[in-house]
């Protein structure tokens, strides 16, 4: 076995230390929590905005346009804008992260519900379905594949962006490891672990959502 040390690409001995493992697992937990909060917030806000856009088509362009404009703001700058207002807090990071999810979520929600053919809605009405029932059991299943596609893009993006939250010293999950690794004379082990953790998490969410998508759109393949 070749001796390994801090200058190696990955210093396995460091990884196997208990203090390191604790650090990695707490980074993972933080990353998960931040992603969950962001997605929950993003879905709620995007649902409200899409609802408005679907009922008032005149506002659709404005809502989609605003979401696109937010998306073009560099994450560093958005944190910079918000710090004077909300301080170096978790709220700052969450506002920015939620803002970035809106573009793909709103676009996919609007496209999804718009893709429901009018004759299907008429048929549901003719069957005596109420608005709520129609929404839950007719429109949502038909829009599901587009909704899931948007959700996947937003989730994978969010997992990546959470790392940038570390730059304002709040949360950041695996981003915290990456930043610390850079501070310690580019200690590559920490950087690699941070990246690997973040990528694994993103892929995990992506696969889970893909699976959910396949289950809820099973009727399409019948």
């Amino acid at each position, binding site marked *: 076995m070749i001796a390994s040390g801090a200058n190696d690409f990955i210093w396995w001995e460091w990884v196997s230390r208990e203090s390191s493992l604790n650090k990695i697992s707490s980074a993972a937990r933080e990353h998960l929590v931040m992603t969950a909060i962001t997605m929950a917030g993003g879905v709620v806000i995007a649902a409200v905005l899409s609802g408005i856009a679907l009922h008032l088509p005149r506002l659709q362009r404005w809502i989609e346009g605003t979401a696109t404009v937010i998306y073009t703001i*560099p994450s560093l700058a958005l944190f910079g804008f918000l710090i004077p207002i909300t301080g170096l807090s978790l709220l700052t990071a969450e506002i920015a992260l939620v803002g970035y999810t809106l573009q793909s979520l709103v676009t996919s929600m609007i496209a999804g519900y718009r893709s429901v053919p009018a004759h299907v809605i008429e048929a549901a009405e003719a069957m005596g379905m109420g608005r709520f029932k129609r929404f839950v059991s007719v429109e949502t299943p038909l829009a599901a594949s587009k909704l899931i596609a948007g959700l996947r893009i937003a989730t994978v993006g969010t997992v990546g962006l959470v790392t940038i939250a570390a730059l304002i010293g709040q949360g950041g999950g695996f981003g915290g490891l990456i930043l610390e690794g850079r501070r310690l004379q580019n200690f590559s082990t920490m950087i690699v672990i941070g990246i690997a953790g973040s990528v694994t998490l993103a892929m995990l969410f992506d696969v889970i959502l893909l699976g959910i998508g396949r289950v809820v759109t099973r009727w399409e393949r019948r």
Partner: protein
Amino acid sequence: MNELWRFVTTASNWQGHSGIWSRTCTHLEVCIVSLLIAVSIAVPGGIVAFRSRIAALVGQTAASVVRAIPSFALLALIFPLSIRWGFGLGFWPTVVPLVALALPPIFLSTLTGLRTVDSSALHAAHAMGMSERQTFRYVQVPLSAPFVVTGLRIATVQVIATATLGAFVALNGLGSFIEEGRLEPNTAKLLTGSLIVSSLALGGFGALSLCERAVSRWREIES
């Protein structure tokens, strides 16, 4: 707002190595180089993936893995390697994560574009006696072009916004205004940097939307 106006209207802030002009040019340069590299990999990649099922599977898997790598993390990883291999600070370490960012959308949209070409159009081309090459050039390319441009548009917006991270590896681009503004702290500087970046990104978005409309003109004829 007043401070912002003062910052933007001070001539010395526009000139020199760290002025607005120079930094905007550097920013655009790094974005254009990254996008060119990404297009020259992703478009041929998409074509190969369209022709071979294995290549499609490999490409799509790779795209979703690459999409999951945070740009900031890739930048942190590439930076020491770039110095060790003699590519230096600034430019090249920034290009790598930007190329990685731009590859998946362009690749996937090229593949989707080619796949959505109606098989009846291909049969018609064949029946007209077009060779494989002619079919590609006169049928598949124009019919899938709008999708490729859509992918490029998504990539462009992300690349322009993300190039700000270059400030961490000493790229003297627009990200430096944001980073300096954040550290000093100087809100006017920060706002200047981010407003320019956002306008560039929106400008790219608008320009490519126009391109998209231009290459999808055939749709109007059809309908």
